[in-house]
């Protein structure tokens, strides 16, 4: 083989990969692995496992980028139905871990169908609106809300509020981008605000407590407040420059709970400070902006909606996680994209990015 053929092969290999997206994602992954190395110092095996997950995720991302968006639309309905059935399966035969029924045993491995719903939901809704593009009326939106509500409720009941939130967000973004009338949006917001007092009355005691804990973490310093207090201390004590890689005291003396998974941002900002946190914000912002740009330039209603929803879901991940760790939002199990330890979310996110790349690459090919 000549260098020319190697180059040709490489070009073919990279042809459908979006340069800016992959660059940003690789930067975030690098920061994530460095942070995980520090956070999981007492369990070094996690670092290796995460590196392997990352490799797998990047392959899937590449694979998704090779698929034509037309195929996504075609498989939307069967995928959604399959995932919905798996959710039913979870409800019936799922494994209980940490008090929640989320896992479906498949013999060779266990999967969380709720995680797949994060992609299946926007796929289906985008396809649905695409089909009814010419005549979107109240009825269509109502149907969309029903489609959204059923799996969300099932996931919330597992219970897995974090995933339910993300699935709901993914669906709502599609509905919003599809053109849900502003009047309806305004009415909806008003209705939600008005029903807050009623909602408060319906909430369980522990749910109320969780909310109150957010307002005043010191009211429950050893219980629910402990996570918020310790992660806020970690973030705040990081200062402008941070304590340095591997030198976070909150991290290394085990004050931060869940420091490799949901609370890894506390580790990151303790060790890298405001400068590190700003760099990460900029990277996420760049990724989101690139995604919105892809959405804006997408050729069909389906691809526009899908790209927009995937991008905004990614945004939701980032904001909810960082807001929770810094004590702005209540504690819900949402990982920090491409940084938190854990293979499932990494794979879902990578597939999403792969879809974005596919949409970007095929934008001109369908425009007829």
């Amino acid at each position: 083989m000549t260098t020319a053929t190697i180059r040709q092969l490489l070009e073919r290999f990279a042809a459908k990969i979006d340069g800016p997206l992959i660059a940003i994602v690789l930067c975030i992954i690098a920061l994530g692995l460095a942070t995980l190395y520090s956070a999981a110092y007492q369990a070094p095996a996690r670092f290796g496992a995460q590196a392997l997950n990352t490799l797998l995720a990047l392959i899937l991302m590449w694979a998704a980028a090779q698929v034509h968006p037309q195929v996504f639309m075609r498989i939307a309905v069967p995928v959604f139905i399959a995932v919905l059935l798996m959710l039913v399966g979870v409800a019936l035969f799922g494994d209980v871990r940490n008090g929640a029924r989320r896992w479906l045993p498949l013999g060779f491995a266990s999967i969380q169908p709720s995680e797949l719903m994060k992609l299946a939901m926007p796929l289906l809704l985008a396809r649905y609106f695409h089909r009814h593009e010419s005549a979107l009326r109240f009825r269509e939106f109502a149907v969309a809300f029903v489609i959204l509500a059923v799996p969300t409720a099932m996931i919330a009941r597992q219970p897995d509020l974090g995933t339910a939130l993300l699935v709901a967000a993914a669906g709502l973004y599609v509905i919003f981008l599809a053109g849900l009338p502003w009047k309806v949006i305004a009415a909806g917001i008003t209705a939600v605000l008005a029903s807050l007092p009623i909602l408060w009355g319906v909430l369980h005691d522990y749910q109320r407590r969780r909310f109150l804990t957010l307002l005043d973490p010191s009211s429950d310093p050893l219980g629910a407040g402990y996570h918020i207090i310790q992660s806020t201390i970690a973030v705040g004590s990081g200062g402008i420059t941070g304590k340095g890689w591997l030198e976070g005291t909150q991290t290394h003396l085990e004050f931060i709970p869940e420091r490799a998974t949901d609370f890894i941002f506390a580790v990151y900002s303790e060790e890298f400070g405001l400068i590190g946190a700003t760099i990460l914000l900029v990277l996420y912002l760049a990724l989101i902006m690139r995604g919105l740009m892809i959405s804006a330039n997408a050729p069909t209603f389906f691809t526009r909606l899908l790209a927009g929803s995937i991008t905004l879901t990614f945004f939701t991940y980032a904001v909810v996680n960082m807001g929770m760790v810094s004590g702005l939002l209540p504690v819900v199990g949402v990982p920090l994209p491409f940084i938190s330890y854990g293979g499932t979310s990494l794979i879902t996110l990578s597939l999403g990015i792969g879809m974005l790349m596919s949409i970007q690459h095929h934008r001109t090919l369908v425009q007829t």
Partner: protein
Amino acid sequence: MKELKNVRRELHYFQVRLGVAGALVLGAFAVLFGRFFYLQVIQHDYYDTKAEDNRISIVPIQPNRGLILDRKGVVLARNYSAYTLELTLSKIPDLEGTIKSLGTLVDIQPRDRRRFQKLREESKGQDNLPLKTRLTDEEVAVLAVNRYRFPGVDIKGRLFRQYPLGEQASHIVGYISRIDDRDVDKIEESDQAGNYKGTDHIGKTGLEQSYEQALHGTTGFEQVETDASGRIVRGANVRALAPRTPPVPGNNLVLTLDMGLQEAAERAFGENRGALVAIEPSTGGILAFVSKPGYDPNLFIDGIDPANWDALNNSPDHPLNNRALTGLYPPGSTFKPYMALAALELGKRTPTQTIFDPGYFIFGNNRFRDDKADGHGYVDMYKSIVVSCDTYYYNLANDLGIDNMAHFIGQFGFGAKTGIDVEGEFVGVLPSPEWKLKRFKSAPAQQKWFPGETISVGIGQGYNSYTPLQLAQAVATLANDGVMYRPHFVDYIQNPITGERKYVAPQPLKTIPLKAKNLEFVKHAMIGVNKEGTGARAFAGAAYVSAGKTGTAQVVALKKDEKYSEANVDERLRDHALFIAFAPADDPKIALAVLVENAGFGARAAAPVARKVLDFYLLGKGVDKPAAPAPKLRDDDDGDD
């Protein structure tokens, strides 16, 4: 055309929506950035302090407790280091289960469990308690490997106190034991709370208690990193720590005590109960201080287990009582030399004045009996001491009167605290009308002093009751021609690092104004006791000249709270044997008082003990074999006492 327009319009709508979403994204990120800025810049100092508080604990470093040594360097109390298995109660959810599974790793005896249970009950405020002390190397290794399985379980390296001589001198040295609530109050009162942060043990009795401050030392401090579960993470040093302040070890106590003499004295008692106090008359330094039986102070250090405690506490022999310091006994005839001296000083008798002793003394309707039924015949002062004639002193007491007696004899320290350097000494009773008035305040009918009571007091009976320490101090003062020193155990306190010594200077408490010829006469009579009188048999063939006086104290009645088994009653109703002595008579190096409980005549039971102690001290002669128990039978020909 219309359709294209439509598409374009819809695309525009969509892009507006995307713009709104983008604005939302920017807004949310701006809020996040604002939050980070607030936490990491504006509130940084606050959270940094919080993080430091989280990770840094200040750990006290316990100082080495000072040693206790005798005058020749024999070690009475020392330290050794060993590992203990400690439980932090608040961190152990299932105590029983934890102890059970720990039992599979190390040998935990039922004894250890009972002791632990007792500690828990006694120290409610304390969270850290030892389950097992003195772990073997293997046990330490096994526990270290398995520690992760047991939250709240720690292995700690500690210094332990040890009393290598066991029972010997146990009442002097005393012991340390775990700090209890009362100790905590005391520590707080004396503003020592900081200095006791790392200390679990404190002196409870004896010198360990009275010299607690000198022995304890100054606690050092060290910053350490602790993880979220409170465990110290050694060598982690994620970030720099302040340098450590080393502890300052406690001072050593060097005693005036001579352990060779102490051992000889203890052995001289054999199986008998009793007390002995030997003092260097010219300084007040204690040479030997015996209370028999003793106990092993090592049992108390980590909390005594209930079985041992019951055995010691309920023994009819009361081994825990320090008889020399807190035992109260009538002095019996050892009182007579002071009575004689009082008579001479107050001009109530001359040495040659003679009385006739028919064997009794009539006072009012009462007949006071002499021990020798048919009397000693004509008796002068010399003979009255040498043969211990009671009738002479009945007579003398009547002539002196109680006020004179109490005042003169009180000068020798009878019925007053000696001020010795351990806590808890008893005052005793120097009988007088004033004393009786105070004593029976609640029973006015008994407040009146009857002249007949004066007569018994004259021979050391009646209300007289003194500690063996007071008897020894009195005879030491007599030997020292009326110059009285404060008795003390500690010769000097030594800084273990610099070697600097702080002497407990002998303090002359007072000089009793006494005429030399009167002193000479009484001493001469006491020499006579050991040469030709009641002490002659015990001191036959002594290579030095000694002065002494025998005594026998009547055990009038059992105290009502004492419980003896039937078999013991007889023995414990027997008289106590006493002996006071000093030697060499012309230049006294040692003065002592001996008391042997329920052993009968002083001449037979107490004087031989004194002889052995004096021999050892003055001649370096060891006591070869443990002395046989004192004769239990009263021997007629032993005569008066």
